[in-house]
């Protein structure tokens, strides 16, 4: 917190003392003032980005969960599918984003597709790894009780994967925002991405940076939300300290 404040103060002081043009490097104070002036536009575009992020992420989460279960129950599928998924991770976003916009238009769909493309595989890997981390003794115990495979999955493998799931969620949610902005940058009616593109083309780096500030705030808020959800979903995780 202190280092961030120092950084901004240094930045402000440099701009004021050097007299550099605001079209090259605007001062933080100018970014803030202009950002507040443009708050209605920024809010509108942020909302579009938030919508694309949450929809895309929801789709990707559902798909990742579905595939993780499939792959857990039918092992050969894993060998067949994982190479394909890994390839999706090697695609450069810069190249793929305009194509997806070309195929799916300027609406919400291309954003959802791109966000899903970026976050699906990390979530799938997190879940698959989480299932594998299940305590063998717990599985042996359930089997000795006569539990079915589905039962073992629901009672042991799924809860064991929760810490991995949340670790994946924290990372993916930040990718999701970046993915949405990227898709908008490649072409959109609304969104922080297109706002940034327009501001850049109008030689307004102050507005570009204001939008960057908003997107960073958005990401941090979503990140914080996942931490809160994790605490609520795993109340036992913070108890190890309080033994009788």
């Amino acid at each position: 917190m202190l280092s961030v404040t120092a950084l901004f103060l240094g930045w402000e002081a440099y701009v004021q003392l050097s007299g550099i043009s605001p079209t090259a490097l605007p001062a933080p104070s100018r970014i803030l003032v202009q950002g507040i002036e443009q708050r209605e536009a920024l809010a509108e575009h942020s909302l579009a980005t938030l919508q694309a992020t949450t929809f895309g992420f929801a789709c990707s989460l559902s798909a990742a969960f579905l595939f993780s279960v499939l792959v857990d129950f039918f092992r050969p599928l894993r060998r067949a599918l994982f190479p394909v998924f890994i390839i999706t991770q090697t695609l450069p976003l810069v190249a793929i984003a305009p194509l997806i916009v070309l195929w799916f238009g300027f609406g919400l769909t291309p954003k959802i597709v791109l966000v899903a493309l970026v976050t699906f595989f990390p979530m799938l890997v997190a879940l698959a790894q989480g299932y594998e981390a299940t305590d063998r003794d717990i599985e042996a115990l359930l089997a000795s009780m006569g539990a079915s495979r589905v039962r073992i999955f629901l009672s042991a493998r799924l809860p064991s994967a929760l810490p991995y799931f949340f670790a994946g969620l924290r990372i993916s949610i930040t990718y999701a925002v970046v993915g949405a902005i990227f898709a908008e940058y490649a072409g959109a009616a609304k969104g922080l991405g297109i706002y940034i593109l327009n501001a850049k083309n109008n030689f307004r780096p102050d507005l570009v940076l204001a939008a960057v500030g908003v997107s960073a705030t958005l990401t941090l808020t979503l990140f914080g939300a996942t931490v809160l959800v994790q605490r609520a979903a795993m109340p036992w995780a913070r108890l190890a300290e309080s033994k009788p």
Partner: protein
Amino acid sequence: MSTPRLELRHVRKRFGDLAVLADISLSVRPGEFVSILGPSGAGKSTVLQLLTGALAGDGGDILVDGAPLAPGSHRFAFMPQRDALMPWRRVIDNTTLGLEVEGLSRKTARARVEPLFLEFGLSGFEFHYPAQLSGGMRQRAALLRTVVQERSMLLLDEPFGALDALTRREMQHWLAGMWTRHRWTVLLITHDVREAVLLSDRIYVLSARPARIVRRFDVPLAHPRPSAAAPQVAAIEADILKTLFHPEE
């Protein structure tokens, strides 16, 4: 003489080239406490895996109440080496696990285990999470989870192996007291000679891998056992140790 609850006749098991069990024969009568004692890595746990159905044997017979053990019949209540409590379930919901797998509703299952918490020294901790319990309490919860299944026999796989020496001693005496009251039929796997003598009616000593029964010891002392310093106990312990260290004599 009554039919044994469990009888193993010349049971063998190998994993590929590795012969783990060469020839295991033993029997457990209803209400008896029997131990299998052997060096680490001798295949003691393999015996239990054959009984829980986690592994299939390569030869010999496993008889339960005189009939061959059917695959997938789940006749025994199994307590694994470490307590294997689920950290995400409250203590009471850990103890009802077996009942829930059998198809009881959570409410019915809870009602069944609740009266037992006092005897197991866990009352007041029903709604705690396992992480909040001490090692001894966790082990008692694991045993409670095992006995409420009301199977005809308990299989205990080195249940106190992971505890510190002091807690282990305390838990062994506690189990001795509990067993004296309930007279469960028990097969215990252990490498602790004192534990075996304190608890068992009969002890089978295994050789190193490939395992066979080197010798069987009957412990003709009344339960609960006199303290470890008593001469009969010390004599049996000395005899077992001699067998473990010099199995060929």
